[in-house]
């Protein structure tokens, strides 16, 4: 009985409701402190000197001229790093400062601290670095040929030869390209480092996704024990994967420790493009074989992901990509080769969707090709092959998550289409591709429809125990919850309160500061915090509740196992004595303190073997998207008119937040489909600004019609799956498919539209007939 989670009537603020977020008023009033808002009198400005070359040998560095500028307090290089000279998430291969060689444009070489950001800028300009420029390695295939590879992983599954030899099988193949996307969070990298008065340690206020991992890497580079480095989460202005790696953390701490004074660092938007990892650009070849009836019998694939200059999470991104080759469809045999290569491009790592975005664009494009070759409706083909719980995946793992793929597809298809015709009823040019420039004409605009369906693994994979920790203290009817979970905007602060209210029957839940004074929460990534940190908060609340029940039971002579929480009361659920005891939690805890800290671990996973077989993943979530687009095929302009979606969420613990994740993810997937790409020419980024790197605005983003598919996930501590990544994954191929559909209706052949983002020139180049 004590184990029963009673959600009586969804009391406001508990699980299943959408309470106001606790930081909401501060954020709308501008008083919420983002990491870039921290500072104060006497705080110096740090800044970073970066390589202008994608590949060069450093002949000499002369920092003398920088020292001679008034207001410059410190200039540091690799010689000033007292601890480990490199850092990195999986492999510590990235130098704190470059020494003999630079491997990408933007690689840090030196840092300064000064009294004004303008002084710091001039100091950087004064540092004289003599380079011997080398030829950069910028072609991923050339890198592969040269053996410049972070990871090669093969998957061989089933009986591929027999499948390909089946009578009447139909095969389709194509090569797909995905451009490099930027997370483009609004809140630029920022930190404030405050050295201890004794000089023995440092406190860093930083916008990050993973406080404890940062601390581990920072402490190693500073040559300090981890206890001497304390991290506090500075308000985070979005993350999306770009704050999982170290950026300015070590530099800022080094400057502060050197000077014995607080130092803050803020990246500019240009520097931000250079200073964090990006989504891997990918080249993917896929071949699908199917029976004439449309049953997929074999998939072959070859992935080449450009990891850029340093390892970051490339090996994990590659794992995700290749183990999602099949998408949410059954597949009895497969041969897949995946390569993540090292080049002199910007380093790539985590971004929302983490390898699955790339795989999904390819497999969904293939499903449309296959449907066309078989003469089967693309939705029917997807339904026919939709994965179900119990199916085995191509890496040999059994799908044991709730898998409502068919339901997601059917609910998406059933959602209403937009009621406005091309151009709308009011003739407003803003409704047309190209917008108010009046470049498009309604007569030349074609409307297309496309579908995408995806599967995404949740949590970390391949043996990584990404546990989470929470401490809950219940006293006088007030619960205080502490965790190191990075709140990056997703609303975990709200969810933690909802969990505590539900499990403990209290209304008042206070959140402690988010810092390293409690155990790790793991990273806010991989759609994992609702499951992992939600699980930790729930476990700590349950432990507190057990103690409370023991206390109340002893006081009233009742077996604590008979007690439960009903709303805000403790009640007796004994068969013979129901309702005999009813006492409010506030009353029962008067003058008492219950304090418990717990860790939540997901089930163990394992690395793939040499054939790519192994139980490497923890759980999965699914989603379907339908896109409606208007295209002017002569001008190559696209207007996304509507996106419909049905998403598998387990249960919606906070429905309004789920909608927020769905709409926000779709916006990022739309960006990748039609506008967002980091352009590098000869290893140099050419659009490191919001003027040139285009993000969806309110005029680019269409209305979203969403259906939330709720099927309780028994393996999840709260029945809920992570909802952050799925929305951004299959919307990209859905939009691409809709563009192909529109191009086809215009009497053109869209078969060359095999890359995202789809550029105007790609559309215009589609031949007639």
């Amino acid at each position: 009985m004590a184990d029963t989670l009673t959600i009586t009537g969804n009391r406001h603020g508990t699980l299943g409701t959408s309470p106001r977020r606790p930081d909401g008023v501060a954020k709308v009033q501008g008083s919420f402190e983002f990491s870039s808002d921290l500072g104060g009198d006497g705080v110096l400005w740090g800044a970073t000197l970066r390589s202008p070359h994608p590949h060069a040998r450093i002949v000499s560095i002369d920092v003398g001229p920088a020292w001679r500028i008034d207001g410059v307090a410190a200039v540091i290089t690799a010689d000033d790093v007292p601890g480990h000279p490199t850092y990195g998430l999986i492999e510590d291969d990235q130098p704190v400062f470059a020494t003999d060689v630079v491997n990408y444009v933007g690689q840090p070489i030196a840092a300064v601290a000064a009294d004004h950001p303008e002084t710091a800028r001039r100091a950087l300009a004064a540092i004289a670095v003599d380079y011997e420029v080398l030829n950069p390695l910028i072609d991923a295939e050339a890198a592969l040929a040269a053996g410049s590879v972070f990871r090669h992983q093969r998957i061989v599954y089933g009986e591929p030869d027999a499948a390909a030899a089946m009578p009447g099988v139909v095969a389709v193949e194509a090569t797909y390209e995905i451009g490099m996307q930027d997370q483009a969070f609004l809140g630029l990298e920022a930190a404030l480092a405050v050295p201890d008065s004794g000089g023995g340690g440092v406190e860093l206020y930083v916008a990050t996704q993973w406080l404890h991992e940062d601390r581990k890497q920072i402490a190693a580079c500073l040559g300090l024990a981890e206890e001497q480095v304390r991290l506090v989460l500075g308000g985070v202005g979005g993350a999306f994967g770009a704050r999982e790696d170290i950026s300015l953390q070590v530099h800022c701490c080094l400057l502060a420790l050197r000077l014995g004074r607080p130092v803050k660092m803020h990246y500019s938007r240009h520097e931000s493009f250079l200073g964090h990892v990006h989504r891997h650009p990918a080249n993917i070849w896929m071949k699908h074989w199917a029976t004439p009836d449309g049953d997929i019998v074999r998939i072959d694939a070859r992935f080449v992901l450009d990891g850029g200059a340093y390892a970051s999470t490339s090996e994990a991104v590659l794992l995700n990509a290749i183990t999602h080759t099949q998408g949410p469809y059954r597949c009895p045999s497969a041969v897949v080769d995946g390569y993540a290569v090292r080049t002199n491009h910007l380093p790539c790592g985590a971004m929302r969707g983490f390898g699955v975005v790339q795989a999904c664009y390819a497999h969904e494009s293939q499903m449309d090709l296959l449907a066309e070759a078989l003469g089967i409706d693309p939705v029917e083909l997807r339904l026919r092959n939709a994965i179900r719980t119990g199916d085995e995946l191509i890496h040999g793992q059994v799908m044991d998550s709730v898998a409502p793929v068919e339901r997601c597809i059917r609910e998406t298809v059933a959602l209403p289409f937009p009621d406005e015709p091309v151009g709308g009823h009011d003739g407003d040019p803003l409704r047309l591709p190209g917008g108010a420039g009046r470049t498009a004409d309604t007569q030349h605009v074609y409307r297309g429809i496309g579908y995408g369906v995806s599967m995404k693994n949740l949590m970390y994979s391949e043996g990584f125990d990404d546990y989470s920790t929470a401490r809950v203290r219940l006293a006088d009817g007030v619960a205080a919850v502490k965790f190191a979970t990075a709140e990056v905007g997703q609303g975990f602060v709200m969810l933690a309160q909802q969990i505590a209210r539900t499990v403990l029957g209290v209304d008042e839940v206070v959140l402690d500061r988010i810092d390293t004074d409690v155990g790790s929460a793991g990273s806010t990534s991989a759609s994992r915090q609702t499951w992992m940190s939600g699980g930790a908060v729930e476990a700590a609340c349950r432990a507190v509740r057990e103690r409370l029940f023991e206390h109340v039971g002893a006081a009233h002579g009742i077996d604590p196992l008979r007690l439960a929480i009903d709303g805000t009361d403790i009640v007796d659920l004994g068969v013979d004595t129901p309702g005999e005891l009813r006492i409010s939690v506030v009353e029962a805890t008067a003058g008492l303190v219950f304090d418990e800290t717990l860790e939540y671990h997901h089930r163990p996973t394992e690395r793939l073997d040499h054939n790519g077989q192994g139980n490497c993943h923890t759980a999965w979530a699914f989603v379907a998207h339908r896109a409606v687009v208007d295209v002017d095929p002569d001008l190559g302009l696209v207007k996304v008119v509507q996106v419909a979606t049905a998403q598998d969420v387990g249960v919606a613990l906070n429905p309004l937040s789920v909608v927020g994740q769905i709409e926000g993810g779709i916006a990022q997937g739309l960006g990748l489909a039609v506008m967002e790409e980091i352009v590098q020419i000869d290893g140099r980024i050419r659009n490191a600004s919001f003027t040139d790197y285009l993000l969806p605005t309110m005029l680019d983003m269409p209305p979203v019609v969403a259906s939330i598919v709720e099927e309780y996930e028994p393996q999840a501590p709260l029945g809920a799956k992570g909802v952050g990544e799925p929305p951004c994954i299959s919307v990209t191929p859905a939009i691409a498919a809709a563009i192909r559909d529109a191009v086809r209706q215009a009497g053109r052949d869209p078969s060359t539209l095999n890359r995202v983002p789809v550029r105007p020139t790609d559309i215009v180049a589609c031949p007639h007939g």
Partner: protein
Amino acid sequence: MPEFFTLNVNGVDREVQDAWLGESLLYVLRERLGLVAAKGACEQGECGSCSVEVGGELVCSCLVLAASAVGQPVRTVEGLAEPAAPTDVQQAFVDAGAVQCGFCTPGLVMASHHLLDTNPEPTEMEIREALSGNICRCTGYGRIIEAVQQVAVSRGASGG
């Protein structure tokens, strides 16, 4: 040249000491006057995070030299309402789920107030056009449009 100039911010005259004349209004508000609600996110007037009003006009404060705002009233998010007493727009943003990371929010709140002050009953397309200079990377804008529409309806109902 005087060693300070005076800005009228949220109805209060504030002396700006020792500023380099090239400093933007955004920098001066944040770093010299301690008014950090306006955010810097692109430094190019592309994202609207730094939106404030100068002389009643909505501007990107990253593109305005602070010294050029002398003699004109400057209004920032801090001047919209007392702490813990949010405006109708601010409350609607919280209630409608228009706030996630919140970095774009002060700019969007300024832009939404400006829109509703000049066009009390905007169509959805007018909202999209008016707020298209404000980039939000978290929400996909749906809940923001919802919030603005809620305010327009409630102001209309109350005769406001």
